[in-house]
C-alpha cells in the first residue's frame, strides 16, 4: 500500500466544510480529531477540490484560503485555482 500523506487543520468552523469535502472526495481518508486540531490521513494522494468545498460552505472557496487554517502537511504539493493536492510519487 502507498505511504500516507497527511493534512492537519485547526478544529474550527472554517475547517468543517473542507473536511466534509475531503471525506466526500477521498474514499480512503481517515479523520482523527485531536485536541484543537484535525488530522486527515490518506494513502498515496489527498485532494481538496474547490467546487466541493464551495458546495459544502455555500460560498466560493479559493484553495489559497487553506493557509488560514492549515497546521501541517506531508507530501508533495500540487496547487492550482481549482484544487489543492498532496501526494507521494512512489
Amino acid at each position, binding site marked *: 500500500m502507498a505511504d500516507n500523506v497527511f493534512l492537519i487543520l485547526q478544529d474550527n468552523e472554517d475547517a468543517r466544510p473542507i473536511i466534509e469535502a475531503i471525506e466526500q472526495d477521498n474514499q480512503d481518508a481517515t479523520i482523527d480529531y*485531536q485536541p484543537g486540531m484535525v488530522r486527515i490521513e490518506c494513502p498515496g494522494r489527498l485532494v481538496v477540490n474547490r467546487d466541493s468545498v464551495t458546495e459544502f460552505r455555500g460560498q466560493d472557496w479559493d484553495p489559497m484560503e487553506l493557509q488560514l487554517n492549515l497546521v501541517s502537511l506531508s507530501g508533495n504539493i500540487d496547487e492550482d485555482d481549482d484544487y489543492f493536492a498532496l501526494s*507521494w510519487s512512489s
Partner: protein
Amino acid sequence: MAVKKKLNMRKRYEVLTRGMGWDTTYQPMDKVFPYDKFEGIKIKDWSGWEDPFRLTVDSYWKYQAEKEKKLYAIIDSFAQNNGHLNVSDGRYVNALKLFIQGVTPLEYGAHRHYAHLGRHFRGEGTRVACQMQSIDELRHCQTQLHTLSHYNKHFNGMHDPFHMFDRVWYLSVPKSYFEDAMTAGPFEFITSISFSFEYVLTNLLFVPFMSGAAYNGDMATVTFGFSAQSDEARHMTLGLEIIKFMVEQHEDNLPIIQGYIDKHFWRAYRVLALIAMMQDYMLPNSPMSWNEAWQIYYVENMGALFNDLSRYGLRMPKYSDVATAEAEHLSHQTWSDFYNFTHAASFHTWMPDDRKMDWLSEKYPNTFDKHYRPRFEQWREMEKAGERHYFKGLPQLCQTCQIPMFFTEVMSDPMKISRRVSMYKGDRYHTCSDGCKDIFENEPEKFIQAWLPVHQIFQGNCGGADLSDVLKYYHLNEGEDNMEYVGSPDHKRWQEWKGEDKQDETATG
C-alpha cells in the same frame, strides 16, 4: 472593449518570480552574489525552482493580515479575561517559559537569516520565498512575545528571554545549533533550517505541543502556535522543494546534500530533547507522549518522505535508528537532568505525581518502571524528608550539541553514559554520541571554538565564581525564577488564585 481576463494562479506566480532579476553588467555576478558557490553546490538553472503554493505578494499580505486579525482578537480577549487562570495547573506555565527563552529567539534568528538568503540567492523565485519566510519568522517572534507577555505579568522567569538566550547554559543548545547553521553557506543553512528542522522535525515541536496547550486550557498559546504553524506548512514546502531542486540540478550535489541532512538532522534532533521533556513532563495533561509523536511524525511520516526522495538517491538521516531507540528514554533523561540543575534554570521542575507516573508507565512500558520510576520515587522520598536533590557542581558538556553528558547507550546498555572522545591538535574533546562525534570530526576547526557555558563559567567569563554571581549574569532572580516548583512564588500565587490542589499534596506528602 475587450475585458482583460484575470490571470490564473500559475500565471500570477510566474509574473512575480520570473524575469524580475537580471544579469548585472557594472559588476560581475559572482561579486554581487558572493556566497552561493563556495559550498560546491552547482545550479544550472535557477528557474527550475518553483514554490508549489504559488503565493503572490498581494495574496501573501491578504492571508497574513487575516491570520493576524484572528490571532490578536483572541490574545486580547485572553488577557482581558485573565485566561491564565484557566490553564490546567501552574506547572504548565514552565513549558511556556522554556518556549519563550529557547524557541522565540530562534524565530528571530530565522528572520535575520532568511532576509540574508532573500538577498543572496541568485534565483528570483528562491529569493521571493526566502523574503516571505523572513517576514513570517519576524511575525512569529512578535506574536509569541505579545502572547506570552500576558503570562509574564503573573509568572516568574520570562522577563528577559533574549538576554538569557545569549548566556544561560541550557539555552546555548538551541543557540549553538542555529548559529552553526547561520555561519554556514546559504545551501547548508536552508537544508538545515528549512528541511532538517522545519520539514523533518518541527511537526514534533508545534503539533503535539500546541495540541497539548489546547488540552491544558491555554487558548492563547494554541492560537499563536497554530497561527505560526500555518506559515510553517509553507516553510516545510520550501524545505522539500529546495532539496529536490538542489539534487535535480547536478549529480555532484547529492553527497553534499546528504551530508548536510545527516549533520543537521542530528543537530536539530538534539535540540528537541527539550521538547520531549516539555511534552511528557511539563504538560500536566499530555495528549500524546514523545515516543508516540516520534513514531507518527518521524518513523512513519519521514519514512514516507524518504521513500519518496529515494528516487533522487537520498536516504534517511544517519543515526535515525539511534534517535528512534532513544525515544523511549529521551524525555526521562532530560527531565532528570533539569530536575538536578533547576537551581540554575529560569523555570521550575518537580517530580511527577502518582497519576503522571502511571501515565508514564503506560506510555513507556519498556523503560519507565525499569529505569526511571525508582529514581523518581527516591527523589520524591528525599523531598518529603526535606532534602530536595540538587546536583552541586557543573556537568561536562558535549562539544557539539552542548547538552550535559547524560545520554546513555540506548542501543546496548541504557544505564551506561554514552561518551565519545576525539583528539584534535593535541587536545581532547568530548561528545555525547556518534552523531555529535561525526559532526565534530568533520569540522573540528569550527567546533573547537564552541562557547561552552560550563567552560566559560570556569574561565571566569560569566559574572563570577559562585552560583549567585552566575545567576546575576544570566539576569535570573535567585529564589524566584529558579528551584523546585513546590513552594516557589509561582506556586504560592497559583494556590492563592485557585486554592490548594491534590497534586500538590501528593507531591509534597
